[in-house]
């Protein structure tokens, strides 16, 4: 019984290892791009609602789309993630500036 | 149509100082428009100031001169009330002239 279990555990872990190896290789798939891009778009939209979008965010999104159109999904995912990071930074800026602006005011 | 040349010439007795502002796009031919197409070159090639039948200032221009060029110079002589004639020709063959009285 133990040997059978051990064998199945080993085969299960190998299967899992192989599966994760495959998914790492397929990191730049179209599905990954779509997910990364829509996350970036959503963040940028939130920044828009705060009236604080950055030009560089739009540029990164455009780069991502361009790379995806060319089938270069690795690059497309990287650009999307950069766009998301920029968008999130712009949200942080808008939120913290709600109070921080007062420090600059001439009194 | 109103003249493209604004000019003011002031005589101080010995010399006359001339300032001119000319309305012209002065497109260099290197700039692209919003659609990404080159705006064709359109610039003044020669600008001449004449006093008493003689040229007192001649400029041979090219694409390096910017839009609505401004010129300021002085020449010896020139009396109050006399005429100063200004003219330009551009690379498309268009031209304009005007005459101003020296103040």
């Amino acid at each position, binding site marked *: 019984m133990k040997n059978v279990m051990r064998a199945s555990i080993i085969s299960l872990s190998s299967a899992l290892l192989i599966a994760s190896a495959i998914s790492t290789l397929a990191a730049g798939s179209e599905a990954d791009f779509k997910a990364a891009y829509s996350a970036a778009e959503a963040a940028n939209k939130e920044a828009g609602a705060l009236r604080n979008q950055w030009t560089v965010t739009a540029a990164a999104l455009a780069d991502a789309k361009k790379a995806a159109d060319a089938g270069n999904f690795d690059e497309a995912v990287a650009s999307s993630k950069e766009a998301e990071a920029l968008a999130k930074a712009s949200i942080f800026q808008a939120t913290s500036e709600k109070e921080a602006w007062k420090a600059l005011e001439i009194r | 149509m109103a003249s493209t040349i*604004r000019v003011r010439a002031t005589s101080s007795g010995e010399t006359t100082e001339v*300032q001119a502002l000319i309305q012209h796009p002065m497109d260099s031919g290197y700039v692209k428009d919003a659609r990404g197409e080159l705006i064709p070159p359109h610039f003044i090639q020669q600008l001449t100031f004449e006093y008493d039948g003689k040229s007192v200032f001649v400029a041979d221009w090219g694409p390096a001169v910017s839009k609505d060029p401004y010129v300021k110079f002085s020449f010896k002589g020139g009396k109050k009330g006399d005429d100063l004639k200004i003219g330009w020709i551009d690379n498309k063959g268009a031209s304009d002239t005007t005459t101003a009285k020296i103040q």
Partner: protein
Amino acid sequence: MRSAIHFASAALALAVLAFAAVPPVAADAPDPVADAKAFQKYFAQKFPKLKLQDFVNGPYSMNEDMHRQWEEKEQFPPYEFSLDMGKEMFSKPFKNGKSYADCFPNQGIGIRQNYPYFDEKEGKVVTLELALNRCRETNGEAPFSYVKDEMAALTAYMAFTSRGKPFDIKIPADPRALEAYQNGKRYFYTRRGQLNFSCATCHVQSPGERIRAEVLAPALGILNAMPIYRSEWSGMGTISRRFATCNSQIRGVPLNPQDDEYRDLEYYLSYVSNGLPISGPGARP
């Protein structure tokens, strides 16, 4: 020199009167009168050699070399073509026979210093550019782009007819007007764009200093010379154009011309420059 001092003290006196006209507000509410006093005092202390009216020349008042350039430029200003076009446009009637004069007090002459104003019916700030386009639309004409030459020409002419008149922006006893003023102030001091600049970063903290090759203008009087012929643009620019390009220069996506934030910003900036003379149209590097 004496007449200049008289003018300055007259302008100051007018400024004090203008501020006194704003009704008293609750202690924790914004106090525009105090704001404007502090604003003008800050710049006067930073540039003690300047008279109040000098601030309307922006970067040209920041050092001697710039001032010399301004004097030369004034002899043959590059905005003349736009000004002439504006005068022509202003007097030409619309297709329905009416004209701009019918939309404005005093036929539109010598009134620029009263804009922007708070429209209590609409509950919003109305700028001169906005009023001009509304005039066009009311009379069946297509509105002009807020950033292009036609709008610049019209506002150039209207500014010209008000030259020398001190800014006279009013904040009526309406909490919405006070809120618009406060919104404008908040916009001015809020950092934005990837470069994390606020308007104040350049125009309050660093006037007279350089950003790349440009000498920065002080925020006091910064709208008095609008619209401007800007050598950098090889052409005219309106207040709308400048607000948008300031945003994009610090890598922030510009809002739309005449969005609430921009209207409120213009309201704030104009109010704190009350008492300073209109000098538009102007020229800048």
